[in-house]
């Protein structure tokens, strides 16, 4: 283990200090309190548990009795969603535009991120900054112009319209994240490949992309996520054919009031895609949110 190498002057230390170091390395770091973490995690999980709890109850139980866990466990709410096209098409629509958006964002961002990480060219810094401002742009500012733009070119209420609209913040996000990963790849690799006679496209696909595969994964995950969680633009740009699940959820109020059980079940189902991959990206969450800069 090279990281147990002695600090300068460590040889002259009192005996007990050096001993602790060899015994366990992490004892130098102040240990956190498990109580704090348990409390914090409880704070995070209880509202989610409550949603899950609601989704497994019947509406009679929700409205007439207050129970901490479902007494009559039922999957009817999920069955309603998975059999009614008005509900499940929402998931399909969301998935379609989210996947489209992720593919578009990544395919344009990859070469651009490479250019930003390897070359300096006229206006590169301004361009990079301008991309950032688009990541930061409030969707509320763009809602109305998007509505008019996509109506006038006849793309209103299509999946591609939402996918393109989400490029507003996802393309800059992907460029920044990928650039963050690419700067970690030594430039010598590129130069060696060129000397070995690789053309740029061949080098890029055969050598470079495998090298930053994890970066691409993280960028894809974040494009997927940010497109999946967005409501305002997707709701503004769709009415029927491409209506996403999030918009359907905000309009559940029927004549007989809100169907809480079904609403909760729909909510639980939207958490599933994130929860499925969360384990694989756990070490990159901070990096992704900080635009590849941690």
């Amino acid at each position, binding site marked *: 283990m090279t990281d147990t190498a002695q600090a300068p002057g460590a040889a002259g230390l009192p005996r007990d200090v050096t001993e602790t170091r060899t015994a366990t390395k992490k004892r130098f770091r102040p240990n*956190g309190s498990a109580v704090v973490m348990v409390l914090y995690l409880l704070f*995070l999980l209880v509202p989610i548990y*409550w949603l899950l709890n609601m989704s497994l109850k019947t509406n009679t139980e929700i409205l007439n009795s207050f129970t901490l866990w479902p007494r009559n466990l039922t999957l009817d709410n999920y069955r309603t969603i998975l059999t009614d096209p008005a509900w499940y098409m929402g998931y399909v629509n969301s998935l379609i535009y989210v996947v489209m958006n992720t593919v578009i964002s990544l395919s344009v961002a990859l070469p*651009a991120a490479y250019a930003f990480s390897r070359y300096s060219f006229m206006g590169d810094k301004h361009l990079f900054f301008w991309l950032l401002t688009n990541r930061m742009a409030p969707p*509320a500012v*763009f809602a109305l112009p998007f509505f008019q733009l996509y109506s006038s070119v006849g793309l209103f209420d299509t999946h591609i319209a939402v996918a393109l609209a989400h490029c507003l913040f996802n393309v800059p996000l992907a460029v920044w994240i990928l650039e963050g990963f690419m700067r970690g790849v030594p430039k010598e690799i590129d130069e060696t490949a060129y000397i070995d006679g690789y053309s740029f496209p061949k080098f890029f696909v055969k050598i470079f992309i495998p090298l930053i595969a994890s970066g691409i994964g993280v960028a894809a995950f974040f494009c997927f996520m940010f497109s999946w969680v967005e409501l*305002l633009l997707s709701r503004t740009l769709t009415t029927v054919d491409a209506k996403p699940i999030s918009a359907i959820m905000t309009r559940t109020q029927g004549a007989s009031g809100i169907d809480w059980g079904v609403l909760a079940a729909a909510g639980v189902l939207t958490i599933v895609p994130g929860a499925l991959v969360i384990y694989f990206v756990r070490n990159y*969450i901070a990096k992704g949110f900080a635009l590849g800069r941690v």
Partner: protein
Amino acid sequence: MDKTVNQKAWFLVLPVLVLVAFSAVIPLMTVVNYSVQDTFGNNQFFWAGLEWFSEMLESQRMWDALWRQLTFSAIILAIEVPLGIFVALNMPKKGFWASVCLVLMSLPLLIPWNVVGTIWQIFGRVDIGLLGYTLSKLGISYNYTQDIFAAWVTVIVMDVWHWTSLVALLAYAGLQSIPDAYYQAAKIDQASRWKVFRYIELPKMTGVLMIAILLRFMDSFMIYTEPFVVTGGGPGNATTFLSIDLVKMALGQFDLGPAAAFSLMYFLVILLISWVFYTVMTNLDKRDATS
């Protein structure tokens, strides 16, 4: 890393440029266009100059929304940043439990924003929600649809719930990058826990904390979905933040001119903060390159 000067790199950036121009520049130009014109319907537009801008600057409604927005952002930053640092300091440093904490803490970050709203809408209801039910059983009057204070508390607690983990995860990443030797030295000097935090951990975290603060400020500054789902901007206008107000004006009332002027001023603020963010980021990159 020193970069080669190569103007041909523009070709690699071109797709991004075209796409973002289509999805950002054209719409933004539409906004500029509306902000200086007036219409009486039938697609007839008249030059209005800076009239809308001066009208918006005098509009009490916009200043109220801005004031609410700033208050909201200030409160959530004041809670989330210290809490996030505190949580990060208490996280397990490695091993199985570190992974468990990372996964569970990331969970709220990945929940669709309207579902975050739904979760708290259900959770806070007096009749069916755990929080609302418990509070009312304790004799505290709590109703986020009627009471302004309760609405604010709900929206703030919801944001703390949603985003504190982000601050914590960033701070945690900063903490993990501190070499062991620093702690070793502190131990030898018998530094107190506070001094370790003040002179070792905090300085090493400043970079990531700046990112965290700016990200949280930006995102809270354009918050829309969560309060929209929970309170709908109410009671009255009590939780109508800038984005909610803007959408009401633009898509609800179709007041194109004022909404466009409003949008542009909103965007200018964002531009300013983005610039600060960019400066921080590039300074961080430089520091990484030299260290």
